[in-house]
């Protein structure tokens, strides 16, 4: 496969996912969704809450991420995130507890714009999921 590159997703507990035949990854970058194909320019960026889409051949994988940072260089993509869940395995209870967390965060009146934006974004994504 000549159009594929490596993907590594790590969270603090473990290496979450490691693939070497990824054809495309779409990540929710902070300034808008970003699709990454082979031979993309080296880039460092960070993520907002959203869905990471991973395409391998005909398969498609969707993962919910809460935050994180991506690094792409020399055809290997690393995604570092503190919370990541496969959408297929996500449970209603998880969704609810994450939702509550975000709502709690919004109640804080001293929230700066960035945090407010992130919390709103989180609720948005969760609503779409449920």
């Amino acid at each position, binding site marked *: 496969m000549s159009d594929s590159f490596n993907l590594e997703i790590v969270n603090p507990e473990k290496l979450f996912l490691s693939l070497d035949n990824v054809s495309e990854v779409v990540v929710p970058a902070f300034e808008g969704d970003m699709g990454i194909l082979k031979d993309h320019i080296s880039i*460092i*960026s960070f993520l907002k809450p959203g869905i990471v889409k991973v395409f391998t051949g005909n398969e498609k994988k969707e993962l919910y991420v809460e935050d994180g940072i991506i690094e792409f260089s020399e055809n290997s993509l*690393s995604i570092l995130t503190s919370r990541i869940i496969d959408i297929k395995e996500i449970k209603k209870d998880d969704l609810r507890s994450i939702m509550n967390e975000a709502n709690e965060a919004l109640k804080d009146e001293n929230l700066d714009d960035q945090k407010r934006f992130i919390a709103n974004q989180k609720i948005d994504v969760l609503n779409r999921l449920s």
Partner: protein
Amino acid sequence: MASLDDLKKRITSVKSTQKITKAMKMVAAAKLRKAQESAEKGRPYSDKMHNIILNLSKNINDKENAPKLLAGSGKDNVHLCVVMTSDRGLCGGFNSNITKKAKSYFKKILDSGKELKIVTVGSKGFDQLKRAYKEQIIENISFKESKNVNYFDADKVGKMIIEKFGKGEFDVCTIFFNKFKNVITQIPQEQQIIPLKSEKSDEKNDVVNYEFEPEEDEILNNLLPKNISTQIFKAMLENSASEQGSRMSAMDNATRNAGEMVEKLTIEYNRSRQAAITKELIEIISGAESL
């Protein structure tokens, strides 16, 4: 000499101690496997994070305006030491190794006339330090309730440190923990996390030119606090693996010592029993002879 009854009691008591230490060893061995696994699994994250930050800091041209977490506050007056220990005892020299290392560092700082502040993570470290450094300890955190090491606990500690740094309460922050090498060896470590030390900066000269989205400093501002939590998390993972390893070898030793003691006591018990029998026999025989 102790009577037969006393010896018997002592043997039973040592035997039951041995049973306890043996069980603790087994438990520690089982926990160790898990802790070691998660320590090894956690390494990629902190390594990657470290690499990205290294790359970022190389790409920053304007060193003067670099974020304070990276460059420091420009002063070196107040030192914050985060001493990370366990919440439970009976693990050999585990906790005292860390506090020993920390104490020598404290002395260096106090001798050079700088101010010292201490945060202890884990109740055992607090117990060992509170007598000598009561004034300096500003916070004591313990995660007795959480069963396993998790990232959110580490994040709490990280956020607290950053908040204190933001208020200007200290200039340099160092963490102390045990690095897990193998079951017998754990190396106490000190690691400076604020300002960030990039010790390997000369090794790699092939600077990759990255595209940044958004700007470098915005990424750094976001990433550096996370890095601190990550480093603390790594320290916690290493610590928990070390704790179990240390406990396992300590309990192994204790079990062996108890075994030796039981053996010695049994010999002593048998001897004195024999002596008592012999004594009785002599009495009977000499009684019969005198008739």
